[in-house]
């Protein structure tokens, strides 16, 4: 959160900061304010919210989605998108389920989950960077393709019978209320923070997002970087598939249905420019926590899921529109 002077933001001269002055220094501060507001509202609205175990349960609302969101953030910063992530989960989970039927152990299952994720990412990446197709079109195609294979294999059946030790990823606790998934989430956040904000690879990602042609002429291997990002997104989807499958202990082709939009919402709410070029990992972490807390808080008030998605949509629009609105108003008064 202290990277307000990172090279990334320097490349975006029309960032809101210059006009907003010192009041709201960065997107992350705004998100922290929103998180505090959501937390306070929930604590006041429901007597059940401030309970360590309940909050621990609630983290499952976002940990798996956030793992994908980190990789997706890099992909979107580089000017691409992957809408097939939820379908990759379905396919990876189906592959793990099929392997479990023939007696695969936990290490093999994890390897298969991650491997299928990588393969799917490679397929997307090859189509986008090899054939030069637009990623939104390619991944809408693979969104149907990957889940379609799951439906073909499973139909209305389900795979179960995972080994007991496999449940550790999605149902295990490291210490007291700290779940295994929380630790995986934190490690992923740290890894992607280092990758994006502390390595030359991360700077190449920003450069590509701001100006792919310029990046190419400055010697960045644009296609290779983009392909790597698709691989990473596939791998993280595979990791999410391992965690979710372990948590459910069962695979159906409808698994993780609709998650791609929630992941993209998380990334955009986290301050990543949907057109590419800017965004931070701490922003995505905060957005993930906010979305998890909002859905859990509304769940405690028994707000139906359909109304809940309206809330998340409104939250997204409000957080994005607010700074721009302030800018407009200031410009008019100045």
């Amino acid at each position, binding site marked *: 959160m202290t990277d307000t002077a990172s090279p990334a933001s320097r490349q975006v001269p029309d960032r809101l900061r210059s006009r907003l002055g010192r009041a709201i220094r960065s997107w992350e501060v705004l998100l922290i304010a929103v998180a505090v507001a959501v937390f306070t509202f929930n604590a006041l609205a*429901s007597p*059940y*919210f401030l*309970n360590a175990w*309940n909050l621990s*349960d*609630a983290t*499952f*609302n976002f940990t798996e989605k956030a793992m994908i969101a980190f990789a997706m953030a890099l992909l979107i910063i580089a000017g691409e998108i992957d809408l097939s992530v939820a379908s990759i989960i379905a396919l990876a989970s189906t592959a793990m389920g099929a392997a479990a039927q023939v007696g695969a152990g936990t290490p093999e299952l994890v390897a298969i989950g991650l491997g299928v994720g990588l393969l799917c990412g490679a397929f997307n990446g090859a189509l986008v960077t090899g054939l030069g197709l637009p990623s939104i079109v390619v991944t809408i195609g693979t969104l149907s393709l990957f889940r379609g294979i799951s439906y073909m294999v499973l139909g209305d059946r*389900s795979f*179960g019978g995972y080994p007991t030790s496999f*449940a550790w990823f999605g*149902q295990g606790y490291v210490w007291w209320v700290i779940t295994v998934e929380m630790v995986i989430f934190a490690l992923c956040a740290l890894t992607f923070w280092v990758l994006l904000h502390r390595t030359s690879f991360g700077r190449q990602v920003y450069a590509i997002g701001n100006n792919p042609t310029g990046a190419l002429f400055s010697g960045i291997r644009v296609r290779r970087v983009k392909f790597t990002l698709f691989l990473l997104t596939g791998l993280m989807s595979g990791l999410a598939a391992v965690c*979710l499958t372990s*948590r*459910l*202990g*069962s695979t*159906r082709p*409808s*698994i*993780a*249905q*609709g998650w791609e939009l929630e992941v993209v919402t998380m990334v955009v709410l986290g301050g990543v420019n949907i057109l590419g070029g800017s965004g931070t990992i701490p922003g995505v972490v905060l957005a993930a926590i906010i979305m998890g807390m909002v*859905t*859990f808080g509304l*769940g*405690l008030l*028994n707000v*139906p*899921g*359909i109304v*809940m*998605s309206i809330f998340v949509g409104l939250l997204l629009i409000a957080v994005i529109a607010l700074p721009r609105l302030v800018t407009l108003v200031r410009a008019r008064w100045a």
Partner: protein
Amino acid sequence: MSMTRRLFAGTTALALTTFGTGAMAEEPVRIALLVKALGIGFFEAARDGAEEAAAELGNVEIIYTGPTDTTAEGQIEVINSLIAQNVDAIAISANDPDAVAPALKRAMQRGITVISWDSGVAEDARALHLAPSSDALIGNTIIKLAADHLPDGGQVAVLSATSTSTNQNTWIAEMEKVMGNYPGIDVVGTVYGDDLADKSYREAQGLMQTYPDLDAIIAPTSVGIVAAARAVEDAGKVGEVNVTGLGLPSEMAGAIESGASQSFAIWNPIDLGYAAATVAYNLSTGAAEAAPGGTVPMGRMGELQLDDTGTGAMADPFTYDASNIEQFKDIF
């Protein structure tokens, strides 16, 4: 029916009140009716039934909830928030019998009464399962529906789904067991429409040609019954051949109106929601216990008889005809 039902409901409610006086003065008993997904007519009808039970029991709050998609992970999120709220009972129609089991077990550990209804869960993750009906009751109902309109006996044929459909085969076998109770009724043949509209239609046509004196077609499948009714209408045999079996009111409204079908059956979602809420209430307040082989009162629906696995069947499938199709055709 309504008089006896009401009388029965009254006495049971009275009995329950005496049992549950401890809870009456305190906070309401909160029963969560957790469905596969919101926005489905069948489940909204079940909610109306649960609300009816709540009004009858008094001091009961029904929390009607569920995910937006029919996914197991969506239901787990809802179960977690219900555990957090420390509701008194959860009555679930599950999207996946195994995936929701760990979350439900956690709910039971924290003293929440858990039952499944409509679509069951793993045996150790609930106190009991309330099935809408049983194979034996369904088998008896489908032949009774045909026989009721044939007081002098007659020929009936069965239009099933596929020859390997477990459900349909079980129901037909159960039907054959009770044929002795319906003298004069002769089952002349069984054909398979594979649950495809066009194949079912052709098979129904074939039946009418092969057996010119056919009086009824029994289709224990929602696809077959609609196709058979259309075949009867198209052949101009309305009034001669009665189509019956298991179907959905929304799809069968036209056939009832044209007269191609006198009546058909399927579970009644209102009764199911009512029974689920009542059973959950009785277990949660300690008025009844879910012991294998035992019984649990369900208010106006009578007693739920449990088998060794803690599963009980609510009732005969509910009969739909011209008198009630208008009410139900918009529900499911």
